[in-house]
């Protein structure tokens, strides 16, 4: 517990420090224009909170960030349950951490319908996370639909890699 407290103190301090050096990660208010929301989700730099080392530890389940789905389905399969719950617990225990969940689909059918299907995939992960103690404000679920495929081509092996939700930590 003492260790956890220590971590969150460091997190809070570094979060404050990073405020001045890094752009706001994303402007979520209505009417935000182009460029007002920095999109530097991957930018880390010196001001990164220390919990990132925990997130990036290859031996930790937290380093795994993708949830895969069956065709036309948005339910989180049992094999990914522990992955989602681990991130939910991490968010619960690190109040300053926040994620963007990006839902993705394969490229069959309507782009807009796929966008909505990808949203549902991201929402399913968000719901599981909030039930496990993460707060709404820590999570934004969005969809990239079929627009950002991880694998190209019209084959089941490509499609199955593209039906997924990615968990991105802000500022990481």
């Amino acid at each position, binding site marked *: 517990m003492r260790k956890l407290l220590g971590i969150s103190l460091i997190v809070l301090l570094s979060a404050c420090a990073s405020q001045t050096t890094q752009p706001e990660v994303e402007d979520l208010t209505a009417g935000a224009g*182009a460029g007002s929301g920095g999109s530097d989700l991957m930018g880390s730099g010196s001001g990164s909170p220390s919990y990132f080392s925990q997130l990036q530890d290859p031996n930790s389940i937290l380093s795994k960030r993708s949830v895969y789905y069956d065709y036309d389905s948005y339910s989180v399969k049992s094999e990914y349950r522990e992955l989602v719950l681990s991130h939910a617990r991490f968010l619960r225990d690190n109040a300053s951490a926040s994620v963007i969940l990006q839902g993705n689909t394969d490229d*069959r059918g*309507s782009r*807009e319908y796929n966008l909505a299907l990808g949203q549902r995939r991201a929402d399913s992960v968000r719901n599981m996370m909030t039930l496990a103690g993460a707060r709404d404000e820590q999570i934004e679920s969005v969809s*990239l639909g079929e627009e950002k495929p991880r694998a190209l081509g*019209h084959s089941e092996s490509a499609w199955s890699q593209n039906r997924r939700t990615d968990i991105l930590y802000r500022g990481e």
Partner: protein
Amino acid sequence: MIVIINGDFLFFENLIHMSIHRPKSIYRALVLLLCLISAPVYAQLNIEIFGGGASRIPIAIVPFADENKLQQSITPVISADLQRTGLFKLVDPAGLSPHAPVEVVYADWANRGANALVIGRVVPISGDQVEIQFRLMDVAKKSQLTGLAITVPTAQLRMAAHRIADVIYEALTGDVGVFSTRIAYVLKRGNKYALQVADADGYNAQSIIEYSEPIISPAWSPDGSQLAYVSFENKKPIVYVQKLATRERRAVASFKGSNSAPAWSPDGKKLAVVLAGQGGSQIFLVNADGSGLQRLSRSSGIDTEPNFSPDGRFLLFTSDRGGSPQIYRMPVTATESSNAERLTFEGSYNVSPDFSQDGKSFTFIHRNNGQFNVAVQEIGSRQVQILTNSKFDESPSFAPNGKMILYATEINGHGILSAVSRDGQTRQHLSVQTGDIREPAWGPLPTWK
């Protein structure tokens, strides 16, 4: 930016309705033979014609005098425009070259099966201006049906040709021509995405905006001056509206979660958009300046791809509230989605609806045996016709006269533009550039129409 032709309309004569004498059955073999003979001439247009040509209007288009001195010949553009509609059959003018009414021997054209004849000439005016004179002759009545002289800068020769094709189309069919309209689509080349606007035949493409992140769902404002679209440049979908003339743009839906699927109301004052920030993907109305957000659909499922009826009273949209994605219709005033009426019942995947201009039918994508095809449904009779047999069609969009449908399809792994006639009998690939083309949207009639 709307292209303006400095048109001088000189001799609009006797715009009468010509009675087209369609070939009787005994002529069909001859018609088919002529069609086959002339096929190589037009092969480069890549037009596929299905079914008999009996109901097509046979028309001969003689290359205009001196058009070969221009950087862009006029008559090949007119021919391609007319042929793409599936309503015309081109009669080969080989060996005959009248350019004025006194030079026309009507019997020659009657013998070749032509009911209509297009002749004309190009006259240099001054500097880079030329005058294009054309006449449409009625072969049976041996008289001029209509004519037009257009003065244009040489940079706008294609647009002048489209305008002439419109006049011919309107005189022979009684319908409004759409060859002078424009289309919008997204071009992906490498890792770059460009929102482009082009002539209705795919030529004269201009990039409106370019990004290294995806753009989808362009939608024309009813007056053709603005495009709404979805951009992923901020790691999530946000709806923007951009003026074509000034390139000035604004975010109209940038709420928490995903923002997508913009559709203009017919008066251009509002946009229907799909927002996911309040749970699920639901349809909202927002003023064109981004103010006045109002929720429209209220279901526990996906509601997306809204499309206004021409009278602005209804929305078509895609919803999976019944278990599979199907097309529904609801009043725009509805606040309860229980007012929505399901329209499609054939198959388990019907998406991307787009109303025809008369509001009596809509085009959409229908999945059948793993293929995604363009289909049309009559709203009254619920009769469905599937118009294509390709594998991956998407984003169908009606021409503003309801006679053709523009859509994206895939050939050899590349996205290309295609057009199909309303009856499904004529299809043409329009792509004239390299790269992946997707998300086409057919623009409105020019404001002078």
